[in-house]
């Protein structure tokens, strides 16, 4: 084993029924480095991490760690924790009904009795040292997702881990929070902790990482020093092909040119919901792609949820195709051919234990009504059609959707809504936590749907993504609409200045 390395994984194989998830993968982590693990969905990143943390047993290969003469045998996540491997997952895996302090210490009791006073004090110190805005006695569920994520990291940090795995930690953080996290990561790096960083944000990789290991289709593509691998090369290595010129996708699709081009598809007046969105006006035309932008917590998700009737609506007059409509619950919106892909895929999107097929037909099946179930053959036909159309990677239509990778789960939900043939499609963070290739696919799909006359509202935390797809942006701040940008104004700088200075209407 090399002197500098604290972890060496050699020749790791992992086979699932029907899929070879990893074959002969090597991975080396050195002391005090931040090492990015990159690859598309299904490339094997998650599997590799789960092998390392003892969630899956490996089929072949060996794992060596500094301080251990023999290869280590990690049989369970507990084993992994005991030898100093801590993981912070993409989705919050803490208990939201316990307090922050309890979450930091849970499962690590050394004695049967607990000194809560000491514990809360200690938790307070940790939170303070990491600059996390939460109180130890606060119930975790009342914190924002970003803060919950940081508590998870605090927990890992406090376990004095040698290897810290961060699996998509930044996908729900805003810029300031990301900066704080990076500061923390660099601090840990100074202390000699090896950090494995899994993310889809390329900017972040180049900002904070020292090395990159790229996986593709379960195989190792290579390990690179960050300075030797320019961005474009990284992307093409991940995809295994030259990347489409992303900036040109908008001009490629000609836009919608139907006769009713400028007809207003949907409009809302004075709309507000219990989720404390201030009353706002909104409209979308046929074939238009617009978007809500703003910082995390500015109310962009809450606004579209109000449109779909996902939260209890307090006020508002809605019109669809010029006719007055009423939406008080999601089914009303669905009947008016409005579809909504929610922000939180795991909580609000998938029905985890049900099959891919059942997940795809669900919304249409609800629209069809209680007494009109599809025949098995019909359901298979629908599922196959959309699996093919969206290139969903699944072993069969019977596979439980929860066993798919994040990007493929997202495509399943997208398939579910496309199957209902909506006029107006709302996509809230459809590209969160999925790989570059799929992101581009989804953006292209959005533009294609719009060119066929569908109205699409697109929300993303990545502003450049919205600039590429949207022709009109509604800017929000503190749950108010503060501005609307079109044409020439659609640029990063203008968005930032509107968020910062825009007048509250």
């Amino acid at each position, binding site marked *: 084993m090399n002197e500098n390395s604290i972890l060496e994984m050699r020749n790791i194989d992992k086979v699932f*029924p029907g899929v070879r998830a990893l074959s002969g993968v090597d991975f080396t982590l050195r002391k005090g480095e931040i090492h990015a693990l990159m690859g598309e969905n299904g490339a094997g990143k998650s599997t590799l991490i789960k092998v390392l943390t003892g969630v899956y047993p490996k089929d072949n290969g060996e794992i060596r760690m500094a301080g251990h003469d023999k290869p280590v045998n990690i049989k369970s996540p507990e084993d992994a924790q005991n030898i100093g491997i801590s993981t912070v997952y993409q989705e919050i895996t803490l208990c939201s009904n316990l307090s922050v302090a309890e979450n930091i210490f849970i499962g690590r009791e050394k004695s049967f009795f607990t000194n809560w006073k000491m514990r809360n004090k200690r938790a307070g110190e940790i939170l303070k040292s990491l600059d996390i805005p939460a109180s130890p006695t606060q119930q975790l569920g009342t914190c924002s997702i970003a803060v919950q994520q940081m508590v998870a990291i605090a927990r890992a940090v406090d376990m004095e881990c040698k290897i810290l795995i961060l699996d998509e930690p930044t996908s729900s953080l805003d810029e300031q929070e990301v900066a704080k996290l990076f500061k923390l990561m660099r601090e840990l790096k100074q202390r000699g902790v090896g950090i494995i960083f899994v993310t889809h944000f390329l900017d972040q990789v180049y900002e904070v990482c020292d090395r990159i290991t790229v996986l593709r289709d379960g195989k190792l593509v290579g390990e690179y020093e960050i300075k030797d691998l320019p961005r474009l090369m990284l992307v093409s290595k991940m995809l295994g092909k030259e990347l489409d010129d992303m900036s040109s996708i908008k001009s490629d699709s000609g836009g919608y040119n139907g006769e009713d081009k400028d007809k207003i598809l949907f409009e809302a007046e004075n709309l507000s919901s219990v989720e404390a969105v201030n009353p706002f006006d909104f409209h979308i035309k046929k074939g238009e792609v617009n978007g809500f932008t703003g910082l995390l917590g500015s109310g962009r998700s809450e606004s579209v949820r109000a449109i*779909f009737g*996902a939260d209890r609506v307090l006020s508002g007059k809605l019109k669809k195709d010029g006719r007055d409509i009423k939406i008080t*619950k*999601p*089914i009303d919106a*669905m009947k008016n051919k409005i579809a*909504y892909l*929610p922000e939180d895929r795991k*909580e*609000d*999107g*998938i*029905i*985890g*234990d*049900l099959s891919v097929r*059942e997940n795809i037909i*669900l*919304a249409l*099946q*609800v*629209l*069809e*009504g*209680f*007494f*009109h*179930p599809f025949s098995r053959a019909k359901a298979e036909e629908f599922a196959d059609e959309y699996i093919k159309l969206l290139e969903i990677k699944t072993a069969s239509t019977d596979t439980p959707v929860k066993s798919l990778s994040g990007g493929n789960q997202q495509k399943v939900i997208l398939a*579910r809504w496309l199957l209902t043939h909506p006029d107006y499609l709302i996509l809230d963070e459809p590209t969160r936590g999925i790989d570059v290739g799929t992101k581009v696919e989804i953006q292209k799909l959005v533009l294609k749907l719009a060119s066929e006359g569908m109205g699409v509202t697109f929300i993303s935390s990545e502003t450049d993504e919205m600039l590429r797809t949207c022709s009109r942006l509604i800017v929000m701040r503190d749950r108010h609409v503060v501005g609307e940008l079109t044409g020439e104004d659609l640029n990063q700088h203008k968005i930032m200045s509107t968020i910062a200075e825009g007048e509250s209407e």
Partner: protein
Amino acid sequence: MKTGNIFQKIFRRQIMIPLAAFLLLAIFNLVADPSFYKITLGYNSAGNPVLSGYLITILDYGSELAILAIGMTLVTAASGGQDISVGAAIAISGSMLLRCLCGADTRSENLNMPIICAFLISMVVAGLFGAFNGVLVAYFKIQPMVATLILFTAGRSIAAWINNNELPIVNDQSFAIYGGFIPGIPIPMPFFIAVIVMIITWLILKFTNLGLYVQSVGINEKSSRLNGLNPELLKVLTFVLLGVCVSVAALIKTSRLMTINYSVIAKDIEMDAILAVALGGNALSGGKFNIPASILGAYVIQFLTTTLYKFNVSSDALSAYKAVVVILLVVFSSESVRGWIGGLFKKSVAVKAGKEAKS
């Protein structure tokens, strides 16, 4: 390797859990005393041919349990909890049935109204009590076991109150059919009733979206709502359906006795019904369900009870014996043990393949 996969696949099927338990009990009885399987054809007091024997008892009494297990499976799937008021609800429904049949005169010679009308009324009453449970669970978000505890406690008193605390006795023999035999057919009627209920259930699952909706709500309520479902209404619906099953079981139970004993009728039957669902391999936390497995589970429970009676276990000690067997069944059907056994198959096959390759 291929055979290993087939073994594993078979072993992973949910229906295998109650099936394995069933086979185990069957083999045990075969070894211990083959006379268990003796079936004799005799004549009952009315001169009609009837089959008797332990297997017939299982078929007879297992059927009411199977009917309840169907409803309990749906409630479990949708709400992730169980209804413990089933026994009390049977008392209510049975009491209502007798009240309708006998009218004000508890010893009347003639039926007060046709049996079908009385049965439908008792079904509506049982459905309403089911809806009561369902509303507490769905709209007031009370844990199902706690919500149904109310009816569990009060149900038998309500049942007694319906008949002014008297015990009506039905004298018309046409009512005895449902818990006994149809003249000329030697197989117990409850079995046929259960088959009818199963067929209706199958038709409902085939021609409506009940299965998809209920599983969806049971797995992810938030997401189901965003897909246009009404989770609360669906939960209430499953409790109402369980109420309908309860009224059928009450018909059989009261028909057997031609009267009712409020404090004893269907005592502890809810536990057997819940056990049938669990033995069928359904997660008691809700979500995906498998009704045939629950039905088989119900018959297995009755098989077990009958076996214990056969070996002269006194009714006081019965539950203790039952508990031991249940522990074994549940442990062996648990995910981890099944995975382990599946693994053994894989290993032995792999070893065999290795030897073949060497030779």
